[in-house]
């Protein structure tokens, strides 16, 4: 490199820039697929990532232990009071549970979303290295039956959808990613809208195109609408924290705090099929 003259270096740099920009333009249309090289690299790095993730978690746990002890002491006191209160309620709950079971059987009423889903549990083994996008890598892939566009959840709510799959890993596009869009529904007002990700890792989402007359209030819940989307209906997405008017003035938009804490994701469930019939088919990971 050092033997190149100034002019040649400039031409080399220009050619390099053009090649990269053409490559970038080409790859922009194919981000949903892994190249064989990327796939091989991901397969090779997966065990190392898993190890580093576990080590990182252990170190983080050790370092934050003293602060946690103080918190735990305060929390313990609050919990003891809560336990007393709940013990009283538990007695009432037993009675209500019995009644509920009888009524459900009578009406064949299916309220439990989880019972309608076949899921595959997977561990998070990596995350996107940068700060602009939000994606995670899980330790289940094509050989475990994971396919593109499958929905990924936790018991708390919606995580995202499978974007790319290799043999034993899969990359999940989080709903906080700016490229993500989810058909959403305000639970209380039934207003539809699109939940979009906002760049950055603060777990903030925005729901746009909400009809003015059905605008939600702070604290309202957002669930997936299931309209023309890859996500099944009824999965919790988050809670409204703020409502604004869109720039066009025709619609409202809401800032939404996600139901899932994306900074603490360790295990997720991939929905491999939806069974409106309703038997529990979860598989262990």
């Amino acid at each position, binding site marked *: *490199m*050092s033997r190149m003259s100034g002019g040649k270096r400039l031409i080399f740099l220009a050619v*390099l*820039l053009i090649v*990269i*920009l053409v*490559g*970038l*333009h080409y*790859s*922009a249309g194919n*981000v949903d697929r*892994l190249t064989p*090289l*990327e796939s091989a*690299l*991901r397969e090779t*790095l997966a065990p*190392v*990532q898993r190890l*580093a*993730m576990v*080590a*990182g*978690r252990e*170190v*983080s746990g050790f370092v934050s232990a003293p602060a946690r002890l103080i918190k735990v002491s305060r929390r313990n006191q609050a919990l003891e009071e809560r336990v007393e209160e709940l013990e009283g309620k538990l007695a009432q709950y037993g009675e209500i549970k019995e009644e509920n079971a009888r009524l459900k059987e009578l009406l064949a009423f299916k309220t439990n979303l989880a019972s309608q889903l076949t899921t595959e549990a997977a561990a998070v*083994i*990596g*995350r*996107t*290295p*940068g*700060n*602009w*996008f939000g994606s995670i*890598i899980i330790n289940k892939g094509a050989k475990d039956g994971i396919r593109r566009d499958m929905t990924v959840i936790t018991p708390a709510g919606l995580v995202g959808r499978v974007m*790319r799959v290799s043999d034993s890993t899969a*990359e999940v596009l989080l709903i906080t990613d*700016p*490229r993500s869009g989810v058909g959403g529904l305000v639970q209380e007002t039934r207003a539809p809208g699109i939940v979009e990700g*906002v*760049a*950055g*890792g*603060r*777990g903030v989402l925005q729901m746009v195109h909400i009809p003015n007359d059905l605008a939600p209030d702070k604290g309202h819940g957002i669930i997936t609408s299931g309209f023309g989307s890859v996500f099944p209906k009824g999965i919790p997405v988050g809670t409204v924290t703020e409502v604004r008017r869109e720039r066009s003035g025709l619609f409202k938009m809401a800032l939404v705090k996600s139901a899932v804490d994306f*900074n603490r994701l360790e295990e997720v469930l991939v929905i491999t099929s939806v069974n409106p019939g309703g038997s529990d088919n979860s598989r262990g990971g």
Partner: protein
Amino acid sequence: MRSLYFLLLVLGALILQVTALHFIVVLGVKPDLVLILVILNGFLRGTREGAFLGFVGGILQDLVSGGYFGMHALTNMFAGYLAGLGEGRLYRDNRVIAAGLSGFCTLGAQLVYYLLLELVGVQVPVLTALVSIIIPLGVYNALVALVIYGWYYRSHQRGMLRGREI
């Protein structure tokens, strides 16, 4: 050989970045170790090597990230070149200067990344980009550079990163 060590260091930083660094997220951002290494290398080695190893390190990052191939290569090349402009002009024994330069070059590189995002059609509001990512990352990278510069500088002077320019 020294370049190979540097790229191994970049690979190690990348593995940390996709795994353990997530546990030190502050205000939604985690430090970009690869970018910091590229900037420090540019600062100590000059524009040519800064840009070249920035480019190669960026390619490695693109391969691990998947998706838009070439974005990290271009931004890291720019960051390495920008940092290289400080070589011979700024006092390299002072870690505060290295940290300031890391923060400044991070801001520049992230602005280039933002423009490339627009090029591939990923829309992020400019205010969100600045407030949620670019500025916090600039500050965070500067702080991390402040901590690791001493070690990196010693390695450049006497350790495995010592040696002639490429």
